[in-house]
Every structure is written in structure tokens, then in C-alpha cells.
């Protein structure tokens, strides 16, 4: 090859490489999706990570599924019978359901799955387990709970979307120790997992399950007919936000679950991209204090934070200047849901009072000891909250020790009950999905049982009494009364301090239709042209 031939070949190659719009998601039967996080495993019981639950929703079906009003609707079951005292619950599975390996779904599979889920679900599963005398198969399609105490919220428990959700697996898989990971991903959901194509941290492929039998009802969140319009759904893990935005703009992916707030204005201006709120139930930011050690073992110190904390500051740092994305929440429950209340939330309202906060801290015996603030700087939301908190603590005269860590280290540190001077902590930040804050059942952060409570180990008998009363409440009116009291008790004892209610966006190509607002990506009824 002489120099001219070489130049010609190079030119041809360059034109070939530069063929425009070559990597487009042109195939209408393939949906390319960027999930909120890496899908590192797929056992929705072993881990409570939301991204795993979201993937599991494609593979496994549920006995019940919540609709967009958070009402549990029959999904794998044909129907149920409950005794008048709510002690006996009998369920019948729909006929004709199959697992991806061709085996029929039987009552024994449901029972094994329920048992595994119960062992890991601290708020509802374990309660049912403690009240259970028997869980038995009547025939291949029917099973029955026999309880020694009433449990009126059984359907909600079986269909709750908060993690861990109850997914039905084949008996041999569900028999796995709930604290060990399963290795087979065989479900009866609308898509089957292509384990052979799975590259953890890069891609996860789901293929349409031809034998899936959708319900006849219209789909609504996790209920109704889950009709998939794609042969394949490809989850592309794109760790960098700017790259994900560019890939969406360039048509290389179809749908991005959680665009960064900073990039949303850019996406809104881009042709061919739709942007909308992802989850109408949003999230509640959390200022979590350690109730075991001074100064926050004194309720006065905790209330001092309530007096001084400005939710506006926190939300501005978390979601930026877009005021449609956040609102103040002087309460623990998700705004816009039936049980939302502001009863007892007065300390979070009105002008912030740093002088009063300082006085209360002094009364609580605070004398300038270092306050260990754990900040996961690799997570934008916790970093933003941590920065605001550092400033707030200084304003009220606290000696803040800002510990910049990654989330993995915060996860380890927050479990330590030792004093802060011995590796423990005083404050960390997180947030709770609004779907988990609609009532006390999935709301692990509101539990105030002391040593067995969530990190921070709050102890409040008043809160625990109200939670128990909610479980026994016979109707919505009674629930509302109890929840108003619960909210006040939790505010008075300061189980934790909400830093505000905020929502996030999702973005997709305009040739994709049927994307709905939900606390999880809903793939059924989505289509692409």
C-alpha cells in the first residue's frame, strides 16, 4: 500500500466511523434505560436497595400490588377470604401462572417466599411471624394464615412496595437463608433475567417472558395487567451524570430514571426529550441524631435543632432553585397522602430562632463538646444536607466535627453505638422515600423502640403506643386520629428531624410514551416508536 492508497483507505474508514446517528435506540422493541444506581445483585430480600427492588419487579410477581392510590390490589392471587376477627386469611392463586423455568406457580412457592420475606421485613413481616400459628397449603393454589392475634393490614403487608417487598419465587430458591444471597433469578414476572448477559456495574438485560399471563385490569403502578411492549429491556449503568445526559440527548438511551437536578434545565431545553416529576410521593430529608449520647440524649438539645433548622435552606441545597420541587414538611408523613398531618410540628414552622436554640442547648448541658457529623460526600443529597447542617451547628454555637466520608463508611459508622469519642457519631443525614412514609408500617425510621430501633436508637413509649394503635385502627378515620397523635409524639420526642419534602425528575425521549409518575419505574404499558 502506497501513501495515496493509505490516505484513501483512511478517509473511507473515517466516513464510516462518522456515520451519523449510528448508535441510536432505533429498535422499537428494545428499551434502553438508565437506572438510579448500579444493579449489583438481584435478591430483593437479601438487600433492601431500591434499585434491586425495581429490577425484581420485572422478574418476580407479587401476591398483591399497590395501585396509584396505594391500595393493595390482587395480583398473583385470584382472591382472598378474611375471617371477621382478621385472624384467618385464606388466599387462592390465579390458575395458569408459570415460572420462567416452565414450572407452575404453586401455593408451596408462595408459602416459602412469604417465610423468607417475613424473616427480613422488620416492620410487618416479623409482626405477622410473631402472631402466626400456621401458614399452610390447602391445595396447589390455596394457602392459609392462622394467626393468634388480629392483623387487619395483611393485604398491605403482602403488597407493600417499600423494601423488602414480597416477591414470589420457586420454593427451592425461596428456601435460601434470608441472610444469604440467592443465585438463581427465576420468577413469574413479565420479564426474565438474562443472567448470561449480565455485566454487574454495566448492563442488565431483561427479556420478555412469553408465558406471562397479565391480569385483565388496567395497570396502575404495581397492580393490574403488566403488559410489556418490548422484547428486551436493557439497563445501562452510566455512572457519570453528564455522560448519561449526553447519551439521552444523543438518542443512545431512551429513559433516565434520575437525572441530576443540575442537568435538568439542559434536558428541558433539548429537542426530543421530555422531563417530568418521577415520583409524586417524593422523599423526606432526614437529620438523624444519636439518642444514646450527649448532647442529643437530652430532648432539649434535639428540640433546639428543631427551633433553628430551616427546611428552606436544606431544600435549596438539595434541589436547587426550582421551588416546584420541594415543600416544607412540619410532619413525618408524606404530603398529599391520606395520613399527612402537621400536628405537633410547630417548632419547625415560622422564623428560626438561633438565640433560643443556644439557650436550650445550654439548658441541656451542652458545653462545646465536639459534635461528630458524618457526611457521605459521594452522595449529592447527603453532602448538601451535611453542608447546611455544619453551618447551622456553628450558628447555634456547636463545635462541629465535619467528617467527610463515603456512603460505605457512613453505613459502617452509623451502626456504632459507642460514644463519638470512641468512633461513634452524633448526626448523619439520609432521606426516606415518600412511599415508605405513608403510614407507620414501612416507616422503619419512625420506630422508637430504643435498642432495636433504626440507627440513632430513639426511645419513646408514646410513639410506640401510637404505632401499635395504628395497626389496630379499624378504618381510615381512626387511622387519621392515631397518626395525628403519633406525629405529635414523634415531634415532641424528636425521633428525627425532617429537613423537607423533595421530588426528583425523570427524563425520556419523546418517542417513548406511557411513562408514569411512580416511586419506581413502571415498564408496563410503556411503548416506543
Amino acid at each position: 500500500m502506497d501513501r495515496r492508497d493509505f490516505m484513501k483507505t483512511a478517509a473511507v474508514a473515517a466516513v464510516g466511523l462518522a456515520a451519523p446517528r449510528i448508535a441510536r435506540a432505533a429498535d422499537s422493541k428494545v428499551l434502553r434505560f438508565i437506572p438510579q444506581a448500579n444493579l449489583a445483585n438481584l435478591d430483593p430480600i437479601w438487600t433492601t436497595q431500591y434499585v434491586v427492588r425495581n429490577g425484581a419487579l420485572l422478574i418476580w410477581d407479587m401476591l398483591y400490588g399497590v395501585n396509584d392510590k396505594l391500595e393493595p390490589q390482587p395480583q398473583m392471587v385470584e382472591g382472598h377470604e378474611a375471617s371477621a376477627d382478621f385472624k384467618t386469611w385464606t388466599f387462592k392463586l390465579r390458575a395458569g401462572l408459570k415460572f420462567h423455568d416452565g414450572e407452575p406457580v404453586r401455593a408451596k412457592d408462595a408459602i416459602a417466599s412469604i417465610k423468607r420475606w417475613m424473616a427480613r421485613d422488620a416492620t410487618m413481616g416479623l409482626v405477622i411471624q410473631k402472631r402466626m400459628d400456621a401458614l399452610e397449603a390447602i391445595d396447589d393454589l390455596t394457602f392459609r394464615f392462622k394467626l393468634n392475634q388480629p392483623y387487619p393490614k395483611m393485604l398491605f403487608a403482602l403488597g407493600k412496595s417499600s423494601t423488602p417487598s414480597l416477591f414470589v419465587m420457586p420454593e427451592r430458591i425461596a428456601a435460601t437463608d434470608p441472610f444469604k444471597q440467592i443465585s438463581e433469578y427465576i420468577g413469574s414476572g413479565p420479564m426474565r433475567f438474562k443472567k448470561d448477559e449480565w455485566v454487574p456495574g454495566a448492563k442488565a438485560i431483561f427479556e420478555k417472558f412469553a408465558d406471562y399471563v397479565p391480569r385483565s385490569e388496567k395497570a396502575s403502578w404495581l397492580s393490574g395487567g403488566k403488559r410489556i411492549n418490548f422484547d428486551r429491556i436493557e439497563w445501562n449503568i452510566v455512572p457519570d451524570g453528564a455522560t448519561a445526559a449526553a447519551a439521552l440527548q444523543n438518542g443512545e438511551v431512551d429513559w433516565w430514571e434520575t437525572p441530576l437536578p443540575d442537568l435538568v434545565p439542559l434536558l428541558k431545553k433539548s429537542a426530543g426529550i421530555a422531563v417530568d416529576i418521577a415520583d409524586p410521593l417524593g422523599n423526606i430529608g432526614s437529620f438523624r441524631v444519636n439518642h444514646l449520647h450527649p448532647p442529643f440524649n437530652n430532648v432539649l438539645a434535639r428540640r433546639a435543632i428543631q427551633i433553628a433548622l430551616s427546611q428552606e435552606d436544606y431544600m435549596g441545597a438539595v434541589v436547587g432553585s426550582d421551588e416546584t420541587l420541594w415543600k416544607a414538611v412540619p410532619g413525618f408523613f408524606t404530603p398529599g397522602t391520606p395520613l399527612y398531618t402537621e400536628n405537633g410540628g410547630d417548632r419547625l414552622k415560622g422564623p428560626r430562632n438561633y438565640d433560643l436554640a443556644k439557650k436550650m442547648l445550654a439548658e441541656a448541658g451542652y458545653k462545646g463538646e465536639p459534635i461528630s457529623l458524618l457526611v457521605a460526600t459521594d452522595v449529592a443529597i447527603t453532602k448538601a444536607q451535611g453542608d447546611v447542617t455544619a453551618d447551622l451547628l456553628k450558628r447555634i454555637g456547636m463545635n462541629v466535627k465535619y467528617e467527610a466520608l463515603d456512603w460505605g463508611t457512613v453505613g459502617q459508622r452509623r451502626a456504632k453505638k459507642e460514644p463519638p469519642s470512641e468512633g461513634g457519631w452524633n448526626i448523619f443525614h439520609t432521606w426516606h422515600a415518600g412511599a415508605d412514609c405513608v403510614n407507620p408500617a414501612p416507616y422503619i425510621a419512625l420506630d422508637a423502640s430504643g435498642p432495636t430501633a433504626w440507627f440513632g436508637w430513639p426511645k419513646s413509649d408514646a410513639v410506640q403506643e401510637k404505632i401499635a394503635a395504628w395497626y389496630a385502627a379499624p378504618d381510615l378515620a381512626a387511622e387519621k386520629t392515631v397518626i395525628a397523635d403519633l406525629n405529635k409524639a414523634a415531634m415532641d420526642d424528636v425521633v428525627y428531624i425532617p429537613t423537607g419534602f423533595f421530588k426528583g425528575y425523570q427524563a425520556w425521549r419523546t418517542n417513548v410514551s406511557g411513562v408514569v409518575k411512580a416511586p419506581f419505574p413502571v415498564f408496563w404499558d410503556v411503548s416506543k416508536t
Partner: protein
Amino acid sequence: MLACVVRRILATIPVVLLVALFVFSLLYLAPGDPAAIIAGDQATPADVERIRASLGLDRPFVVRFFDWFWHVLSGDLGVSIFTNLPVTHMIAQRIEPTVSLMCLTLILSLSCAIPMGVIAAWKHGTWIDRLVMMTAVFGYSTPVFVVGYLLAYVFALYLDWLPVQGFTSITAGLAPFLRNLILPATALGLVYMALIARITRATMLDVLSQDYVRTAKAKGVGQRGILFVHALKNAAVPIVTIVGIGFAALIGGAVVTESVFAIPGLGRLTVDAILRRDYPVIQGVVLMFSFVYVLVNLGVDLLYTVFDPRIRY
């Protein structure tokens, strides 16, 4: 020569063992808890404890080290805490994108940097020399991710020629393979190219002032022959050395480049594993990288004998 190669390969074993011990100790001392990450935010402290126990993370350091080390000796790098997949399988899944990226980067860098360095030395003191050196300084001082974003913006978003992210195996054809890899290789190669161009220029300047070059000129050897046959061969030893040393920088750069361009390679695997505290994966990847690095240095040493026959082992 063969005895030397065997000796050097055997010498890699204690090096890799030391690296293994060092990495294991470092991970043991480093804060962070995979059990907490697995359990997720909704889990109770008791759940986290039970998961930690089920993973064997509550065992003493010595027990854990020798358990892991024993498996490594038998070629088993263990199983990922998170994915439940063998580490060797995960490395095998990721090796093609990284090797492809590194090879293409090497090809691009060397094919640009060496002529640039040679020409800069030849045209020493002229505007060509200054232009080459300016380019080298720019390439060396601009972070990989900045170049990456710029290239993606221009060639993917603005010109609409190339994809922003992803990887296509070479088995799917050369054109799709190159389409995905050309931008990341360019971004990663810029630093490498700058480094090699500067060394090539400096070494060539030295060589071009030697007596034998003057003799070659006097004998009527053409400029191309002097530069690329006589001078470059004698300047090759420092260049090959810097190529070998730069390999470590290339590995580090691949981590960033793979993240920016969403390439499912070993760099991203390493970052993900570190963030999650997936100890077996971190240990496996670091061991592999250290082994490869030792081998590259061995290769560099052997290349010395090709370029300079006076060197004997």
C-alpha cells in the same frame, strides 16, 4: 536470556505476594462495611450484623487472610460479595474493553507522539518545535475527564458523528468497535502522547548531536534514514522505558476514562468495588494489575536488548 526471563518471572511471585498482603491489610484497616451497603437504608442494625456474619466479615484478620490466600494459590480469587459471581468471571467479562482501550490508546499515542517528538527535535527551535511542545504541555496538563467531555460534546453531541458512551466488542466488526473506542482512546492517549513526545524530542536532540549522525550525513544518508533508522533506534531505550512507566498512568487514566465514557472495563469494576467494599473483587483486580505491571516491565527490559545489543542479561 531464557534463564533471565525465567528468573524474572519467578521474581514476580514475591512481588505479587507482597502486593496481596499489602492490599488485604489496607482493606482490613480501611473504614466501610459491605454488609451495611448490602442491607440498604431500610435494614435494621441487627440485619446488618447478621449479613456481616453470613459473609464471614466478623472473622479475625489472620483467618480471613489465609483463607483468601489459600484460594488464591489454587487460582481461585473468590466470589464477589455483592454479585455472587466468581471474581475471575467478573474480570474476564471486563478485560476486553480495558485491553482494547489500552491497546488503541497505545497505538494512537505512539503513532502520534514518536513522529511529533522526532520532528520537533529535527526542527529544533523553529515554530514547529514550539507547536509540538505546546501541544504536549496542553496534553499533559489537561485532565482526562475534561478532554473526554470536550470530545464527547464536539464529536457526539455537536457533530453527531460518534456515540457518547458504551463499548462494542471487536467481534461485532471493526467499525462499530472503533466508533465506541476512538473518543475514549483519544482522551486517554493525550497525556500519554504528551509524555512520550517530550521524551522522544529530548532523547532525539541528544542523539542527533552524536558523531555517528554527522558521519551518516557526510556519507549521504537521507534525512528520513538518519531520523528514523539511525537516530530513533538509538533513542529508543529511554522511550521504551517511559512507555513502560507510563503504563501505570494508563491504568489510572483508564479508571477515569471508563467512567466518563461508561465503558464496562476493569477500571470501573475497580471503582465500583472500592465504593461498595467488595473486598474479593478489589483484591483480585489489584493482584491482576500488579502482575500485568510486572510483566510489562519485564517486556520493557527485554526490549532493551532489541534496541541496544550491547545490553546483555
